[in-house]
C-alpha cells in the first residue's frame, strides 16, 4: 500500500494552482484533505505524476453569507463546517450530514470541496448538495463558471468538472425559515459509507407540504436527486399515501448494486426506510423556525 511516484506542488493561490493543472494535464491531480485520494493512491488505483496540494491557498477557506446564499470555500474541512454557527443556523442540514461522515479524525482534514469533487457515490455531501440545490463554482483557464450539483455528477468518479478546473466554492441557497430537513444514513459502523441514506428538505404551510427536495446517497453510480419523489409530497399533508408515493418514485430512480453491505433488495428496503424516516423527521422539524 505504497503510492507510485509523484512530484509534489504546493501553490499559494488559485491562479498558480490553475497554471500547474494546465501544465500537467491529466497527469496531475488536486489534493485537498487527501482522505479519499491518498487511499486510492496507496492502492495504486490513482497514480498521478503530479500532486497539487491546495492547503496553502487561504482563499479557498471560509464560510460566509451572501444574501440568500451561503458560500463555502472548497478547502473548508468538515470539522470547520460542523463548528460554524452560520451553517448551524442557516443550513442545519449540512451540519447534520457532516456529523455523519466518517469519524472526527477524518473530518479534521477531509474537506467539503474534496467530498463533492471526488465523485464517489459513497460520499455523503453530493446528495445533500443536490437536495439543497447547491451549485459549485469551478475556476479554470477560461474563468469561472457555476454548475448545479444536480447536473454535476455523470458517472462514478466522473463529474462535469473539466480536468483543468478547480472547484473553488460551494454556493448553497439558504432554505426558507421554517423548512424541515433531515439526513438519515444507515451504515455498518462509524467510518463507513452509507448502506443507504436520504436527504430531505421540505416546507410545510398550514399542514400542507409546499415544497420538497429529496436526494439519495450510495444507491447508484451517482447521487440520486429524484424530482418525482419530492413532487409526490408537494400539496399533500405528508400522509401515508403521499409518503408511499414518494418512496415508490425514489425506488424507481435508484439503481443500487450488491456489495458487502448487502444485496440489492436489502439496499432498496433500507433506502425506503431511510426516506420514510427522513420525511417524518423533516416534517416534525418543519415550521419550528429552525432553518
Amino acid at each position, binding site marked *: *500500500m*505504497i503510492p507510485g511516484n509523484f512530484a509534489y506542488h504546493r501553490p499559494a493561490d488559485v491562479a498558480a494552482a490553475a497554471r500547474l493543472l494546465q501544465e500537467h494535464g491529466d497527469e496531475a491531480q488536486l489534493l485537498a484533505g487527501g482522505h479519499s485520494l491518498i487511499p486510492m493512491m496507496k492502492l495504486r488505483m490513482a497514480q498521478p505524476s503530479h500532486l497539487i496540494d491546495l492547503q496553502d491557498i487561504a482563499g479557498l477557506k471560509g464560510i460566509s453569507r451572501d444574501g440568500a446564499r451561503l458560500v463555502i470555500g472548497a478547502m473548508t474541512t468538515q470539522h470547520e463546517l460542523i463548528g460554524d454557527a452560520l451553517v448551524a443556523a442557516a443550513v442545519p442540514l449540512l451540519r447534520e450530514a457532516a456529523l455523519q461522515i466518517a469519524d472526527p479524525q477524518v473530518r479534521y482534514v477531509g474537506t467539503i470541496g474534496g467530498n463533492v469533487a471526488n465523485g464517489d457515490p459513497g460520499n455523503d455531501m453530493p446528495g445533500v448538495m443536490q437536495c439543497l440545490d447547491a451549485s459549485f463554482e469551478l475556476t479554470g483557464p477560461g474563468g469561472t463558471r457555476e454548475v448545479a450539483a444536480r447536473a454535476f455528477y455523470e458517472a462514478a468518479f466522473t463529474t462535469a468538472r473539466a480536468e483543468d478546473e478547480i472547484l473553488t466554492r460551494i454556493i448553497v441557497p439558504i432554505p426558507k425559515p421554517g423548512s424541515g430537513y433531515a439526513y438519515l444514513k444507515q451504515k455498518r459502523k*462509524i467510518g463507513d459509507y452509507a448502506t443507504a441514506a436520504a436527504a430531505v428538505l421540505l416546507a410545510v404551510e398550514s399542514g400542507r407540504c409546499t415544497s420538497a427536495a429529496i436526494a439519495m446517497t450510495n444507491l447508484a453510480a451517482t447521487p440520486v436527486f429524484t424530482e418525482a419523489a419530492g413532487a409526490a409530497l408537494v400539496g399533500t399533508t405528508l400522509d401515508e399515501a403521499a409518503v408511499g408515493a414518494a418512496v415508490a418514485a425514489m425506488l424507481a430512480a435508484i439503481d443500487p448494486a450488491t456489495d458487502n453491505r448487502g444485496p440489492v433488495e436489502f439496499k432498496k428496503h433500507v433506502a425506503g426506510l431511510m426516506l420514510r424516516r427522513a420525511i417524518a423527521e423533516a416534517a416534525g422539524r418543519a415550521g419550528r423556525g429552525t432553518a
Partner: protein
Amino acid sequence: MTEQSPVDLDRAEKLQGLGCRRKRVEDARFTQGKGNYVDDMKLKGMLFGDFVRSPYAHARVKSIDAEAAKALPGVVAVLTADDLRPLNLHWMPTLAGDKQMVLADGKVLYQGQEVAFVIAENRYIAADAVDLVEVEYEALPVVTDPFKALADDAPVLREDIADQKEGAHGPRRHPNHIFTWEQGDKAATEAVLAGAEVVAEEMIYYHRTHPCPLETCGCVASMDKVNGKLTLWGTFQAPHAVRTVASLISGIAEHNIRVVSPDIGGGFGNKVGVYPGYICAVVASIVTGVPVKWVEDRMDNLMTTAFARDYWMQGKIAATKDGRITGLWCHVTADHGGFDACADPTKFPAGFFNICTGSYDIPTAWLAVDGVYTNKAPGGVAYRCSFRVTEASYFIERMVDILAIKLGMDPVELRLKNFIRKDQFPYQSALGWEYDSGDYHTAMEKALAAVDYAGLRREQAERLDAFKRGETRKLIGIGVSFFTEIVGAGPVKNCDILGLGMFDSCEIRIHPTGSAIARLGTISQGQGHATTFAQILASEIGIPADAITVEEGDTDTAPYGLGTYGSRSTPVAGAATAMAGRKIRAKAQMIAAYLLEVHDDDIEWDIDRFVVKGAPERFKTMTEIAFAAYNQAIPGLEPGLEAVSYYDPPNMTYPFGAYVCVMEIDVDTGETEIRRFYALDDCGTRINPMIIEGQVHGGLTEALAIAMGQEIAYDENGNVMTATLMDFFMPTAVETPTWETDHTVTPSPHHPIGAKGVGESPNVGGVSAFSNAVNDAFRPFGLTHAQMPHDHWRIWRTAQQLGLHG
C-alpha cells in the same frame, strides 16, 4: 490464608503480589509511543523485501519476467521458486504436517499467494518493482466451497500430492481431502440418537474470520557472514519454536540462530505460523549479506496470513422429553484453504474441538472432522482461543439453545439441568478430556441473579406483545452462553508441535541487592506478562514485583519454551515461574538457617522473610538472604541464587464462565444494539484483576466483531471481498458497549497457584452469547438457527423470511 496483622498486610501489599491490581509496567512505554516493534528496527544497510502476489485464486504460473523490475535503480534482486529450489526452500513444512509453497511453484492456490520476492533498497522502490514483475497466469477453475471441493469432478488443487493416499493424519479419500479425525463412539452415539425421545439437528457454520492484530506480521533477518550467525527479529508468538524450525529448514546449526521477538502489537494466533516472508527474508539476507526486512501491509495480512474458523458443523443432540441430554453427534467439514497450515498440537488436527460436549454431562458422543483443501488462504489458527475451542463452544452453545426450542424449554433451565455437577470433578468427558475443576451451577446462578434473568424474560415478553400490536419494530434478544475452555497446552505426553513438547519455562536470577530478573519461554503480545509474572514471583519469593524484571522473547537468553497462544502462558509458564520461585525459596531457606544459626526446619516463610519458629523477632529478609548468597561461604551450598524450572503440566486447565447478552434488534434495518453484556469468568486464582478485566474487555470486543459482522468473504472466483478495514469489521469505541465483568474463583487443583488462564475466555464465550441473543429474539417467530455473522442485511433477511416485513 491465615489471618494477617496490619503490619503483615502492609508488608504483603508492598510486594504487589498475587491478587493486586498492579498497574501494567508495559504501559509507560506503550502509551508514550515508545514501544519497539519489528518495523521500528533500522539496521545499517538494511534492504526491504516485498511480494508479487497472485491476483488469481487458482492458476498455473506460465512464466515470470522480472527483467524490468531488476532494471529499476535500487532493486537488488528478485527471487522466484526457481531461485529457492536449489536450496530446497521453495516449499516449507507447515505446523500441521503438510507443506506449503514459499513462492509459487508452477501454480497458485489462492488470491494473494506469494509469487516472487523483490529485494530493494527501501520499501518504496520494492513496491514499484513489484508492479514491474510480469507474471503470465493461466486461470484454473476455482473451488471456494469445501463441499464442492470433495465432489468427484472437483478440480484437483494440490497436484503435488494428488496421488498420496496417506496424509499426516491418516488416510485421504479425495485429492482435496486432508484428513479425517474421529473421536468418541460412533455406534453408541447413533444408537442413542435412534432411540432418543427428542433429537435436534442443525448445520452450524462458523464463518471464516481473521485475528487482524493491529501490528501485521513481519521480520528482519540478518545473516552475519563473518561469524556465521543468523539473527531473526520477528513478530513471533513462539520464538524458540521458530528457531528450531529455522534450523531444521535451513540447515544452519541451532546455536548459530538467534530469534528475537521484540514488542508485539497483538497476535491472537495470527503470529504463530511460519510464513513465506520469513523464509524469503532469511534467504535474501544470506544472499545479499545485509539485513533484510519484510513487513506485511494490512491487505497482505488479511488476505494471506492465517485466518481463523471456517468450520461447517453438522450437529445432532439427543435428549429425554424432560430435557436430559443423552448424546451428541457432530461432523465437521473444515475448510483449510490451499495448504494445511493450521497451528495445532501435532496429534490434534482439529485442535481441541473434542471439548465440544461443553459444560454438560453428556454420556455418549461422537465427533469426526474432515479437513478439506479449497482455493482460499491457508491458516486455521486459534484466534484468541485454544485450538478450535471457540468453534466447539459455539457449536455446543447453539445446539443447546436449539434443543431448548425443540423441547419448549428455557435455554437456561436446560443448561442447569445438564451441567456437570461440582461433585463430578475431575470429570471424564465422553470425548476424552479430564476437566480439572468447576462449579457451573454457582456461576450460572450468580449470573442470573446479577442480570435479573426472570425480569429480563418478562420485559422481553412485553416487548414481543407490543411488537405484535404494531407499537414497536424492535425485538429484544437474550443470549446466554456458558462455556468451558480447555487451555494451557499442554502435557508433553500428548501435546507437541513438530515434535517439541509443550512444556514451558522460567529462569530466575536474584541479584545481590535483592532485586531479580526472570526470563520465560513465552512472549507477551500485549497480555502484560512483565506485570503478572512479577506478581506471581513477588508472592513466591518475597521480592517486590517492582524489583523484578521480566524478560521474554530472546532465544539467546530466555529458557526454551513453546510461546504464547492458547491461553497457555499462565497455566504453563506461570506454573514454571511459581516452581522456579519455590526452588529459590528452598535455597533461601538453607541460607537463612545458616545465617540464623538454626536448623532448616526451625524456620518458616513469612511473606518476605524466613522467621525462626516461635521467635518472630529473629528473621532474615529476602534482601539479606540474597546478599548472603553472594558474599558468604556457606558450607555445602554453592554461591549465588538462581533457579530454572521447566514445567510439564499434568493436565490442561478448564476455565469457564457465564455470559449474558441483552440485545435490541430493529427488524427493519437489521441494526442491533447491545443493551447489556454481563460476563462472569472463572479463571481460577486471579493474579491481577485489572489485567483480567482488560483481557475480558478486549476479547468481548473481538467476539462482538466476529458475531456481528467480521468475516473474510470470498466471491465465487476466489476474490477476497473483505481485504481492507473498510469491509472487514473492526468495532470502534462507538460500536463497543460497556462490559460488565464479574467472577467466581474455582482454582485449578493441579496448577501450583491454581490459575487457569483467561486471555481467550471472552472470545470463546462471547461469540455464542451474541449469536444466541440474535437467534433468541426471533425464536417466537419460528426461527431455530440463523448463521453468523449477524450483520444488518443478514438479520434483515431473517426477519424477511419469517414474514416480519408485512
